[in-house]
């Protein structure tokens, strides 16, 4: 069966994206803007990089939706954990 000719992601292209995003991250922290804006940009950049690794290197983009839901499930726990701990830190 000649089924090995499936489309392979452009791994090197993903590598360049990861490298560029990392360099942008290192540049962002020296920007003379509000710290909260820097933090927001860093979070967006980090999540973009993590998504690139998961989608292309871990082939999530080419899998069924169910597997993507399994992969996303820990984030639900994280959001839940943050909400549960909010009362502890907000009265400050």
């Amino acid at each position, binding site marked *: *069966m000649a*089924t*090995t000719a*499936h489309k*392979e992601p452009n*791994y*090197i292209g*993903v*590598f360049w994206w*990861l*490298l560029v995003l*990392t360099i942008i*991250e*290192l540049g962002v*922290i020296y920007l003379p803007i509000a710290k909260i804006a820097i*933090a927001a940009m*860093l*979070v967006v*950049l*980090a999540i973009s*990089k*993590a998504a690139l*690794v*998961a989608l292309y*290197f*871990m*082939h999530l983009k*080419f*899998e*069924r939706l*169910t*597997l993507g839901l*399994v*992969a996303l*499930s*820990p*984030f639900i*726990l*994280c959001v839940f*954990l*943050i909400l549960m*701990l909010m009362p*502890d*830190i907000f009265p*400050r």
Partner: protein
Amino acid sequence: MSDAVAVHAAVEPQESPLTPENWGKLGMWLFLAGDAMSFGCLIVGYGILRYASDSWPVPAEILGINLTALMTFLLIVSSVTMVLSLSAIQHGDRAKFKKFMGLTILGGLIFLGLQAYEWTHLITETLPHHNLSFSTHLFATTFFVLTGFHGMHVTGGVIYNTCVLAAVLRGRYGPKHVEIAGLYWHFVDLVWILIFTFVYLL
């Protein structure tokens, strides 16, 4: 079913991931989801403690980011060599697989060496200089717990990859085993990307 077909099934959405050929991959994904919960709790805990603290130092000033940026680069490169080794074994090129898997393992080992160097430097010089230590400030505690937990994962990954390399060379493992090992290694890279941002840069 040949290995080539199994790998094909692994990247084609038409086929269910619940066929016996893919149980290993599904198992690894479930393990990684659980592992991500551990890391998620540690990172959220870190964020909450930091937000609630009045005396949290600026991490970049104490930890330094040049060495860590290099470590991040190294892990990203080792992730790339990992996918290239998978691509090689999928195309039946064992020599190329051996080369790229060897480079992946080497990347992991250099990462661990740099982390050992960083920790030694922090524990013996930088932290005492700032009157911080593992047991006296949550900044140091959370740092060592988070990076230590990740370092353990890298150590496990290096051992795992070495076993996979040996098993492939002896003809016992095929492309799908390499793909499963790759999932674990990329996850370790993914977590480091988050740790680099949340612990070092923010």
